[in-house]
């Protein structure tokens, strides 16, 4: 596949995107992902060739899909035990998490 080499992904961009994704990468990971993302984005660059003037985006592939509702009727909830069964940490019926430090 031709590599147009048009995309420049900076280290800062990778770090920004990692921060948004709640991931932290070390130097070598940042560098590796940076290069790989650049390669993928260069490939994806070909989308620009397609004339999409006036084309509607597809969110749902089947256009007939619309107005799907449920009635306002109760269905059973889980017990507190079941709700917390998979929790890594819990206390008094709550999920327990480390304190939120505002940053």
């Amino acid at each position: 596949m031709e590599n147009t080499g048009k995309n420049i992904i900076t280290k800062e961009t990778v770090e920004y995107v990692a921060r948004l994704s709640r991931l932290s990468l070390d130097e070598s990971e940042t560098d590796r992902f940076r290069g790989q993302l650049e390669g993928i984005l260069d490939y994806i660059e070909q989308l620009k060739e397609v004339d999409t003037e006036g084309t509607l985006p597809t969110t749902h592939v089947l256009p007939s899909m619309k107005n799907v509702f449920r009635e306002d009727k109760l269905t059973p909830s889980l017990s507190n035990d079941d709700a917390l069964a998979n929790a890594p940490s819990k206390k008094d019926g709550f999920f327990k998490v480390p304190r939120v430090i505002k940053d």
Partner: protein
Amino acid sequence: MKDILSSIDDCRSWLAEGGMSVKDAAGEFLARISEIDKDIKAFAFEEPDMVKARAGQIDGSPDNRRLRGVPVGIKNNICISGALTTCGSHILDGFRPPYNAHVVDLLLGEQALLFEGMNMDEFAFGSSCETSYYGPTRNPWDTARIPGGSSGGSVAAVAAGELAASLGSDTGGSIRQPASMCGVVGFKPTYGRVSRYGLMAFASSLDQIGPITRNVADCAEMLEVISGYDKRDSTSVNVEVPVYTDSLDSDIKGLRVGIPSEYFIEGIEGDVKKRVEVSIEALKGLGAETVEISLPHTKYAVSCYYIIGPAEASSNLSRYDGVHYGHRSEKAEDLRDMYIQSRNEGFGAEAKRRILLGTYALSSGYYDAYYLKAQKVRTKIADDFREAFKKCDCILTPTSPTTAFKIGERSEDPLQMYLSDIFTIPANLAGLPAVSVPCGLDGKGLPVGLQFMAAPFDEETLIKVAHAFERETGFSKEKPAVLK
């Protein structure tokens, strides 16, 4: 090893002749799996006690439903209440969902004997089953090779005769591509045909659950069981499900089979091309007509997919943060740190790569250029198919440009890996039903798959043509050495 599971019917006969309880049969199956799977590793893990308990439940029921006691594997991204379901990822360590996926309810309703833990690429991100936290699954035809992915475990287990059938999920080819590489039948239904409720989402607008079987008749039967409207899935379509098994043994004389020139490109292996050409002749021999068609936007499908898939995935996977379930890092002191550490420790490289790519594509300033653009190109791709189906009843292509490659061969080159789904991705983007059926072996003795695609909700045509092809060519009867 005796091939007692060469078809669901064979399995039924074996169960009936043995006259044993489902629990005893479960014991036999488990023993068989232990023996075969030590080289294949189709299972990420096994939970024999849970399987036996399920068998006991079936024994305790007076009913005699159509899949009673038939061993069916469930890809490890489909929820079975109480069963370990981890999506091949460390981040879901210990997760046992408190509910059943809709398809699981349907299979249990037919008394299938379910096996959890079928190995998969982490979060279905991959085409080789190498990105699993539990290690790679091996191709039963050559254990130095990948089985394909991401439903590699589900496929390998069926190909190696460990299970009669299995469920996989298909977002860009994850059922069809491994089915092709392991010489079995893999079916991706129309988007909306099978409920996604209980399928751990990768890309919500592309994901579909489908069956993997040894032959087309079994595929029709499984599809019949798992299809249908589910009010818990807003994208599940409320239309009647045909009796797919009625489409078996149909005549395909006059059926118009579209051959898109764009699918016979550079990069396709010579043997694969040859097998497909031979297959076209076989179909002609059955009275089918071939029609030249054009799907001009095919070359953009992979790009489109590698925007939409990761974008949706980046959002779907943000819930894995160590707060409510799954892996939580022990190292963190505050919440933010806990998120980051847990996700860093929990996700493998491919998952991280896709999360980063998807987050980038959705981030402020890039949305229009990437996500929105991809959604528009997606419309073009779907339009191509709409046009094509005016001229033909189904479309024939190779399933994958190559046969199974060696483990490790492509793991450092994500783009090359992504390109192995080039022929399967369009059906997901357009929401079409598609099936891969075996069409012989290449020079190395590895299976080649033939793909058929049809218009939305026309699964019947696929069953018809695939079954006719299978009867004529007998390629589904080929089996790996382990079963000989």
